[in-house]
């Protein structure tokens, strides 16, 4: 159990670096507040379902059961901003650096240190607020959220309580085709700015823990959704779309593995038709989109099962951990009512006052967002599958846009990018920004094939070279003498040569083995070094093959 937890916590490779030590008592670190760390005992307090059915029938029963209930899902996401320095001091932040090497009196919370706001945080917050179609608060403020935890140096977190910078927005997304597709719109309750806490690294035997403050003070945006999601896949796609949006905007690299995108999910169920909400359960330790999907589905089933068995009082408001290994949620701690964070306005920071000009300026500088791109690609006639692929990664979309803006055929460009180029990138583990094939050359390649200068087969061959080494299409064609042969006379000569060199096969063909046409075609291709136009080749070949009989 502990080792499973260990795997899923972001442990620094140099975890026992000699730094400040914090002793745990009773072997367990008690915390009463919400924290992004997961390190308390996981006692399975739940009684297993008393209904004993076979595995197959159990899943069938579960499906039937869950159909009677509606799941209400809400997600709280923390996005780590990719500003050059932290939110309130000039320390840089680099994921994976040696513990306590990127700290200063301010982010350490030393006596006498004061926070000063990094203006980029406001810029990024406004960008995200606008991208999520929110209403911006032109006058907002910071508040102190007070609780004790060893990784919280000041004993409070600078956050925003009652006047967040953005409220009341929504996000559009398209569900993946393999899950049924469909367009969805989910509400966003609020977006606010806050600072991250440090990290606790636990010793192997659990005797002590160490505090790494590199991450303390890093700016975060907390995005709270309306409880609009109904299934695991909707929730997972919501998270994926948020990742797309923050990457498109350039405000964060949105890596769940690095912790720059963290999601906590709230799930409750109610019988279909009921208007009252059921008891809400929070799930933490979700490190990938698929975990979000599976954890929610598991939790819905768990709650539905308890409900149908009449044990719905066992569904309590609590925090559960998703265990990736066991593929289930387990109780982490029961929520002791609502925590008292003793919020008050942060006296060390002045109010945040935005002018309409500032907001408008940022609005005008927003890039085309994923939703707008998807709608534009749809209008261009691309299939939903193509649309989703191309718009998923901002860099791929840019590449595609660059290609078609230079006049390339849309469908062909999409096919090349999604097919051979994507395969190459996957093999070589490169991103589209790292391949040597420039959009201009892709345009040229497409045009050359379309115009008949080279054959499709040759095109694929030189593509590989262009991807690996760069260069120009025209250059390669010249260098390797790849121009397609379209002169019927020339092809005819080659066909004659092949036929005369292979009398046995010719006899066999004329005897009825028409499949040998492929053999002859292959031979002609060989001597033409692949340059013969296949269509023309086969036409002439067929003529000549069938001529003498």
């Amino acid at each position, binding site marked *: 159990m502990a080792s499973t937890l260990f795997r899923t916590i972001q442990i620094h490779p140099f975890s026992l670096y000699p730094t*400040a030590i914090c002793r745990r008592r009773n072997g367990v670190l008690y915390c009463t507040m919400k924290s992004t760390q997961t390190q308390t005992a996981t006692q399975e307090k739940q009684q297993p379902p008393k209904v004993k059915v076979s595995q197959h029938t159990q899943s069938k029963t579960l499906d039937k059961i869950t159909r009677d209930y509606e799941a209400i899902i809400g997600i709280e996401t923390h996005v780590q901003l990719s500003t050059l320095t932290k939110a309130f001091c000039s320390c840089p932040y680099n994921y994976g650096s040696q513990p306590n090497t990127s700290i200063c*009196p301010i982010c350490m919370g030393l*006596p*006498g240190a*004061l926070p*000063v706001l990094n203006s980029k945080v406001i810029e990024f917050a406004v960008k995200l607020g606008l991208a999520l179609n929110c209403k911006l608060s032109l006058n907002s403020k910071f508040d102190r959220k007070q609780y004790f935890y060893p990784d919280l140096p000041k004993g409070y977190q600078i956050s925003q309580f009652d006047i967040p910078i953005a409220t009341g927005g929504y996000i559009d997304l398209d569900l993946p085709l393999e899950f049924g597709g469909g367009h969805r719109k989910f509400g966003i309750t609020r977006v606010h700015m806050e600072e991250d806490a440090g990290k606790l690294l636990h010793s192997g035997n659990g005797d002590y823990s160490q505090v790494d403050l590199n991450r303390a003070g890093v700016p975060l945006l907390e995005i709270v959704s309306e409880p609009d999601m109904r299934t695991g896949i909707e929730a997972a796609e919501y998270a994926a779309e948020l990742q797309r949006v923050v990457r498109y905007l350039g405000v964060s690299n949105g890596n769940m593995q690095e912790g720059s995108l963290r999601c906590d999910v709230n799930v409750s169920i109610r019988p279909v038709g009921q208007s009252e909400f059921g008891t809400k359960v929070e799930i933490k330790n979700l490190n990938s989109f698929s975990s979000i999907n599976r954890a929610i589905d598991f939790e819905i089933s768990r709650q539905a099962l308890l409900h149908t068995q009449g044990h719905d009082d066992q569904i309590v408001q609590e925090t559960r951990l998703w265990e990736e290994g066991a593929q289930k949620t387990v109780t982490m701690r029961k929520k002791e009512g609502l925590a008292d964070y003793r919020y008050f306005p942060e*006296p*060390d920071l002045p109010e945040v006052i935005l002018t309409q000009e500032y907001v408008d300026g940022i609005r005008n500088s927003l890039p085309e967002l994923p939703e707008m791109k998807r709608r534009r690609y749809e209008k261009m006639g691309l299939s939903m599958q193509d649309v989703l692929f191309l718009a998923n990664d901002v860099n791929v979309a840019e590449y595609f846009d660059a290609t078609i803006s230079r006049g390339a055929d849309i469908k062909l460009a999409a096919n090349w990018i999604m097919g051979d180029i994507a395969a190459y990138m996957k093999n070589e583990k490169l991103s589209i920004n790292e391949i040597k094939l420039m959009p201009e050359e892709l345009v040229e390649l497409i045009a050359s094939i379309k115009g008949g200068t080279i054959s499709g087969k040759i095109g694929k061959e030189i593509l590989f070279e262009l991807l690996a080494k760069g260069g120009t299409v025209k250059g390669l064609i010249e260098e390797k003498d790849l121009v397609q042969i379209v002169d019927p006379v020339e092809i005819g000569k080659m066909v004659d040569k092949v036929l005369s060199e292979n009398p046995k096969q010719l006899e066999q063909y004329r005897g009825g083995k028409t499949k040998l046409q492929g053999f002859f075609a292959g031979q002609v291709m060989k001597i033409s070094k692949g340059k013969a136009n296949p269509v023309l080749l086969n036409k002439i070949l067929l003529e000549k093959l069938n001529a003498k009989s």
Partner: protein
Amino acid sequence: MLSTIQPSRCLSRFPVHLPTCGRTKSRFLRVVSSAQPVTTAPLADQSQILSIRDSLLSRHLSAVQVADSYLGRLKQTEPQIGSFLHLSEPDKVLKQAQEIDDKIKRNEEVGPLAGVLVAVKDNICTADMPSTGGSHILDGYRPPFDATAVKRLKDLGAIVVGKTNLDEFGMGSSTEASAFKVTANPWDLSRVPGGSSGGSAAAVSARQCVVSLGSDTGGSVRQPASFCGVAGLKPTYGRVSRFGLMAYASSLDVIGCFGSSVADTGILLHAISGHDALDATSSKREVPDFTSQFLSASSLKSRPLEGLRVGLIRETVDGGVDSGVKSAIQGAAAHLEQLGSIVTEVSLPSFSLGLPAYYILASSESSSNLSRYDGVR
């Protein structure tokens, strides 16, 4: 422990000529508005800082000599007064003084506070000396940085002679709440010097240093200044950077100045004032050079405050206020009138809400500010 020595005998041991302090009735300075033509009158007889500067630049005294005399007095009086929690090594102080002398010998420029010995309240961070905030929680704590106010003083040539005693984290008004010791009032060693900046006030009062820094949240510079008979100034919030001041109540704290004269206090204030990028609550307003506009009282006519209108808040002398306080306020108002000003009564109906508001803000902010002392770092 503390023997009672007659104040007059105590003071008579001090060889340096002292301008009168605390007794501000006959000698005071007036800040002239910039509209009037200004001639800088000789102030050296009313300002230790200017007097030291004159002596140094005229080679009449060396910085080492000045430092020596203060250090001697410090050594003599400290056992009875106990203003300091930490003292800089005398050699270090003399070395810094020597460096100033060398600069002067080479005809190099020295800062306006060159050779001036300054004491700093122990809740203000100094990198080369421990800063305990008057508490055992920070026993032996050595900050990795200087408070901005301290840095500015050092940049202008001042020599920090030590860290002074205070009520723990600034909470108290007598230094009796210090975790280390109680400072004695130099005028009467059986009395307290006030607080929380009791050590800083006593140090200036006993001439152990020229000027000193304190902090004021609810009177912690003004009250000990009054108790110890020195000039104490609480600047407007935001005038002086709070970076490096261990926070008590973030929306009320300020760093304040002690001097044996108003001129010295003002010169010290000017040295530390101004916007600081490290303090988001520090004011961006220009700091005018008000020190260049100080005029000696002797150069002024008999009703120097002619034309000045002063408001007296009615609620401060209303029912519920101690009769001794009332008469002191009314006496001061009468004095201002004598000097030519017009004192008008004004009303501030929300005055009575001030104290409850203070207690709510100060208590909640201080409990928040002290939660960082959790023993983890």
